[in-house]
């Protein structure tokens, strides 16, 4: 046999996967072929040396980030109920939150309008059906928006995350929505909510006011997790105007070491 035909066996030899029979075949060949014998010895030695190359350990940060991601994911998925379930849920709490939230009134009015619209639409086949349908869909849209804004005020973090996730269903995020999201990004006490909000806002980065809000938010964040995440977003958006805010952040003496490195790296990548 030609030497090339032994290539497969070479690999099996050095990583010790050969059967006794295969081993015999190769041993027989190298006993008569100096070239292959030296080659096999060299590769065996190299294989051993590669095995001595150290693999570094991941930092603790990796685990922290993973579990934050998992938690956020769990909460957002677990609570994916239908809009109707939400309306029912909010209505059941209506009397509790009425004094605090004038928005509830709004909500009920819209529900009445929607239901009324359905009834009207079902009975009356008039000419301006289309117009009514359009009005109805804009009401539904408004309802979603109201729903979202209401959820952002909920005391439960998972409800707030759900509110944030509604953003993806709102076709045209207006100023009210954007302001509410930015306020959540800067002020929400729960880091998972803030992370979800950052994610939602990243999808809205087409709006100039979102970009500006994100840049301003850099110095507002005190959790390393958020600081890292926002640096990633700025990099993704290639937002050069964020460099000044990052430099500002670097002035903070108690800034986490890992974050400091990441920010420095982000700055160099942005300039």
């Amino acid at each position: 046999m030609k030497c090339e035909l032994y290539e497969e066996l070479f690999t099996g030899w050095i990583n010790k996967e050969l059967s006794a029979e295969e081993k015999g075949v190769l041993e027989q060949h190298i006993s008569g072929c100096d070239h292959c014998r030296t080659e096999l010895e060299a590769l065996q030695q190299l294989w051993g040396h590669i095995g001595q190359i150290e693999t570094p350990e991941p930092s603790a940060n990796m685990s922290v980030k993973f579990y934050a991601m998992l938690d956020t994911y769990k909460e957002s998925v677990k609570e994916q109920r239908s809009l109707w379930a939400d309306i029912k849920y909010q209505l059941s709490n209506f009397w509790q939150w009425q004094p605090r939230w004038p928005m509830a009134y709004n909500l009920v009015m819209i529900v009445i309008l929607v239901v009324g619209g359905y009834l009207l639409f079902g009975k009356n086949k008039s000419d301006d059906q289309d117009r009514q349908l359009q009005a109805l869909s804009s009401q539904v849209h408004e309802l979603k928006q109201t729903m979202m804004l209401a959820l952002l005020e909920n005391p439960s973090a998972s409800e707030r995350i759900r509110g944030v996730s509604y953003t993806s269903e709102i076709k045209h995020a207006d100023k009210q929505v954007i302001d509410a999201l930015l306020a959540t990004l800067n002020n929400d006490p729960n880091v998972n909510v803030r992370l979800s909000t950052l994610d939602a806002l990243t999808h809205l980065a087409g709006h100039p006011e979102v970009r500006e809000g994100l840049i301003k938010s850099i110095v507002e964040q005190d959790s390393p997790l958020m600081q890292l995440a926002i640096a990633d977003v700025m990099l993704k958006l290639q937002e050069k105007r964020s460099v000044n805010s990052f430099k500002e952040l670097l002035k903070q003496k108690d800034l986490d070491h890992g974050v400091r490195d990441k920010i420095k790296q982000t700055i160099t990548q942005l300039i």
Partner: protein
Amino acid sequence: MLKVKAGDLDRMGMLFERYNRQLYGFLFHMTYQRELSEDMVQQVFYKMLKYRHTFTGTGEYIHWMYSIARNVLKDHWRKNKQQVQHEGVEAAETIAGGLVPDEAFEKKQAKAELHRAMGKLSESQREILALSRFQELKCQEIAQILGMTEGTVKVRIHRAMQELKSIYVKMER
């Protein structure tokens, strides 16, 4: 509506505990960048979380994980073509640094040199060596991950080893 079993997501935490170091090691030997590798681990687990319904249960979970990791890598290389080599050299030097006794240093420097030589292999050669040597996967497992026959895997490992040897020998001079 998506019905999610609670245990399904908790299982992801278990898988992370079990495989995060291994996956990180693979990504590190492919990119030579620690922080980037950590980000990629996060991306891989996020994708597994998001697409866990598409995992059919045929084949091992770990093979699926490597397939996703390879996609993440490909994606990264498509976007940052020019960076790999340069960073590779830097990382190897970082590993070589630090205070060690003289006699150990020789060895340590040689290791760094070898690691740097591996950085000069093509991505697919580096990958197959990383999987077989650092990840200690059997050729048959690598065949599943890469979608090749076991024979092809063995031949490719051999060629990668020969290539590495020739790069390494040239560097030593």
